[in-house]
């Protein structure tokens, strides 16, 4: 049911459009610049009424967004999931509304960039409007680009806390409807809500909903009624300082008055009949957050995530890779042959460029699907918040909250889903730092090169060398984090942990599928094109002959020529050879292809067992001997260090660009290259002195 019909009077439209930038345009901007690309679509300034959804973290706001729009915005049972602005269309009857899903916020007093965005979109817009003459009271109509109505989502199970934001929003001149979620949870705890009484207390319609199960009750009809008929003026707001003023005692006094009002409203609208939260959620927490058992559980969960994202996906990836490079490529070549175009540049472009590029994108699909599904399970179940508690102190050393541990762990499997997994972080700057650190985690693709090189040069100590690379990877993450915090990201917050823990719940398969599909399709849309284009470019470079001896087609291709031209750059690190440089160039596209590249440039076969490199090993030994002036061991170690630290693969770059934009991605590329080169040179030069 819903309560309190909206006022019949329709307030006058503003005399003039306010000077403030239209909300829709501001909301659309992040998607336009390529960040956070899974937004469900821009809010078009096409005259549709704009409805904003706001609410505290964990109240089911994003679930409600999905339920009303079908846009499948990211959903998660964890503080700060809605770290982006999602948009979508809400069709109800013959009407269509534009819906904006604002980042979760406890209040309009922001402590993070995401909360600030919510505050700005709500408060500045309405204040500009008020100053333009609209005044307090209803504002209706189809003012494109402005918020026409705000749906504040609160939890019946935690009404007192989640009403704070609602009460603050009510102090601003926008029509408001209150959507109350988690009625079932409240009932189990013995809390009974009288929506009519709550509506009377607050002066706005109150509509119970259950968005996790797709039930939105009378929300649509109430929203339309308020949009059409307007809303009567509300009581005068709680006096307080300007939102722009520094937070101080006046804010706290205003907050106290709001808490008093909330207590009265909750007292009038709810009653308890026994029941308590203490139950299986608390019992699980006794283990999951235990000082000793908690980290053990966490490591076990991370181990499962790591194994599933790498080992389970591997055979499927291998199958897809074999399918594309085998039957699909053969079929395409047959078609070109039948058309009389066999062996030409067009066939090469299509088969070795486009088909190979699409094949590489496809091989990421199982990996990303598993990763996103597991992430959704951890989020929706509520465990991710506990993992954040367990790892908080460790991660705080580099200025990150505990929840940043997850993407970094995943990075040891594959950097691409790890970059996407940074979305679990609510703070934009923490996300930025984590995205920049992820490429330093040594992904499984780099492992193939470690094994080959270490087996070739270090014999029975190969395992120690590979283990050392993983230790170095962790050291690089920590040191780079400290470096960035003291330079580019000095303003990164270091506040102590204060984290709301949602109760555990069983993830709903429908939501998991929706979240996984949203994230996967967004990845394919934004990263797929870049990966395919890069593969095509590398193919083209290796095809174009730049004169010289035709008996060495790879060396005399544009690829070989560029590699040879760039190789002196690595001479101070002891591996200034075009084969090694070319392999690193290929590694920019995919680290998995480094070994194959060596096999191709040395005109030998790729070893079936990387621990027995055979002829390829002999060629590598000869070249490293030559390029290092006899200091082979330090040169090989320098090469491995550079391989670990330099620019990640193009798929990771595409994912990075999607999350942090082009500028910061370029900063990351430069930073990694400089760090990797400096370390490699240091390793070789110091090693040369020792050996």
């Amino acid at each position: 049911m819903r309560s309190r019909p909206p006022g019949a009077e329709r307030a006058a439209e503003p005399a003039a459009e306010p000077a403030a930038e239209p909300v829709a345009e501001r909301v659309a901007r992040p998607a336009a610049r390529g960040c956070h690309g899974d937004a469900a679509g821009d809010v078009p300034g096409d005259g549709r009424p704009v409805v904003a959804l706001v609410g505290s973290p964990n109240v089911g706001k994003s679930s409600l967004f999905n339920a009303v729009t079908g846009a499948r915005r990211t959903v998660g049972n964890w503080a700060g999931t809605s770290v982006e602005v999602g948009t979508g269309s809400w069709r109800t009857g013959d009407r269509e509304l534009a819906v904006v899903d604002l980042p979760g916020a406890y209040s309009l007093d922001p402590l993070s960039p995401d909360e600030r965005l919510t505050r700005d979109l709500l408060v500045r817009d309405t204040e500009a409007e008020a100053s333009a003459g609209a005044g307090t009271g209803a504002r209706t109509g189809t003012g494109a680009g402005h918020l026409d109505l705000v749906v504040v989502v609160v939890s019946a199970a935690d009404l007192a806390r989640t009403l704070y934001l609602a009460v603050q929003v009510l102090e601003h001149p926008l029509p408001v409807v209150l959507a109350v979620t988690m009625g079932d949870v409240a009932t189990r705890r013995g809390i009974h809500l009288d929506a009519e009484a709550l509506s009377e207390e607050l002066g706005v319609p109150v509509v119970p909903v259950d968005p996790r199960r797709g039930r939105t009750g009378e929300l649509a009809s109430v929203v339309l009624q308020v949009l059409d008929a307007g809303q009567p003026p509300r009581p005068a707001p709680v006096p307080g300082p300007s939102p722009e003023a520094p937070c101080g005692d006046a804010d706290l006094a205003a907050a106290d008055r709001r808490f008093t009002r909330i207590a009265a409203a909750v007292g009038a609208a709810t009653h308890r009949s026994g029941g308590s939260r203490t139950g299986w959620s608390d019992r699980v927490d006794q283990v999951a957050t235990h000082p000793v058992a908690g980290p053990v559980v966490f490591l076990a969960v991370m181990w499962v995530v790591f194994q599933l994202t790498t080992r389970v996906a591997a055979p499927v990836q291998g199958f897809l890779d074999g399918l594309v490079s085998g039957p699909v490529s053969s079929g395409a070549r047959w078609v070109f042959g039948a058309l009389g175009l066999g062996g030409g540049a067009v066939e090469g472009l299509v088969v070795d460029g486009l088909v190979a590029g699409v094949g590489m994108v496809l091989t990421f699909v199982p990996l990303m699907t598993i990763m996103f599904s597991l992430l959704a399970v951890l989020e929706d179940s509520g465990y991710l918040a506990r993992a954040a508690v367990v790892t908080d102190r460790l991660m705080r050393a580099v200025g990150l909250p505990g929840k940043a541990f997850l993407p970094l762990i995943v990075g040891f499997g594959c950097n691409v889903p790890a970059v996407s997994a940074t979305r679990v972080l609510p703070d934009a700057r923490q996300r930025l730092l984590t995205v920049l650190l992820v490429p330093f985690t040594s992904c499984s693709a780099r492992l193939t090169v470690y094994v080959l090189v270490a087996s070739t040069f270090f014999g029975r100590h190969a395992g120690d060398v590979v283990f050392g690379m993983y230790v170095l990877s962790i050291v690089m993450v920590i040191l780079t984090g400290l470096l960035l915090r003291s330079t580019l990201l000095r303003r990164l917050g270091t506040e102590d942990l204060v984290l709301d823990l949602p109760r555990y719940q069983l993830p709903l398969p429908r939501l998991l599928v929706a979240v996984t599909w949203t994230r996967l399709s967004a990845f394919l849309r934004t990263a797929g094109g870049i990966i395919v284009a890069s593969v095509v470019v590398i193919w083209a470079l290796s095809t174009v002959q730049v004169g010289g001896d035709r008996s060495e087609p790879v060396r005399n291709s544009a690829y070989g020529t560029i590699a040879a031209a760039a190789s002196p750059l690595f001479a101070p690190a002891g591996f200034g050879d075009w084969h090694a440089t070319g392999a690193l160039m290929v590694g920019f596209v995919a680290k998995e292809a480094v070994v194959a590249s060596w096999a191709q440039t040395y005109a030998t076969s790729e070893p079936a067992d990387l621990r027995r490199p055979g002829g390829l090993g002999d060629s590598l030994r000869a070249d490293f001997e030559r390029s290092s002036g006899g200091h082979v061991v330090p040169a090989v170690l320098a090469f491995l260090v550079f391989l670990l630290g330099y620019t990640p693969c193009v798929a990771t770059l595409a994912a990075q660009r999607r999350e942090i934009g082009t500028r910061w991605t370029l900063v990351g590329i430069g930073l990694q290259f400089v760090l990797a080169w400096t370390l490699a040179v240091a390793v070789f030069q110091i090693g040369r002195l020792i050996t």
Partner: protein
Amino acid sequence: MTLASAPCNVPLILGRAALPAPRRLRLAELGLRPGATVTVLRRTAGGGRIVGIGDARVAIGQGVLTAVPATPVQ
């Protein structure tokens, strides 16, 4: 006594936190405001505590715990 030194499973009344105003405000928004009754439920890995405020659970780090005075409910 502060939340850091308070015993577990004992109802406590909170005092005014010795924190910057924005942090105090955030604590208040989460239900941790002067006069509120809370219970420290358990220690966590890393030296923090999980605090119960009614049905809600909030994980709090060591730095904040030591800044929030608390007295047992008589």
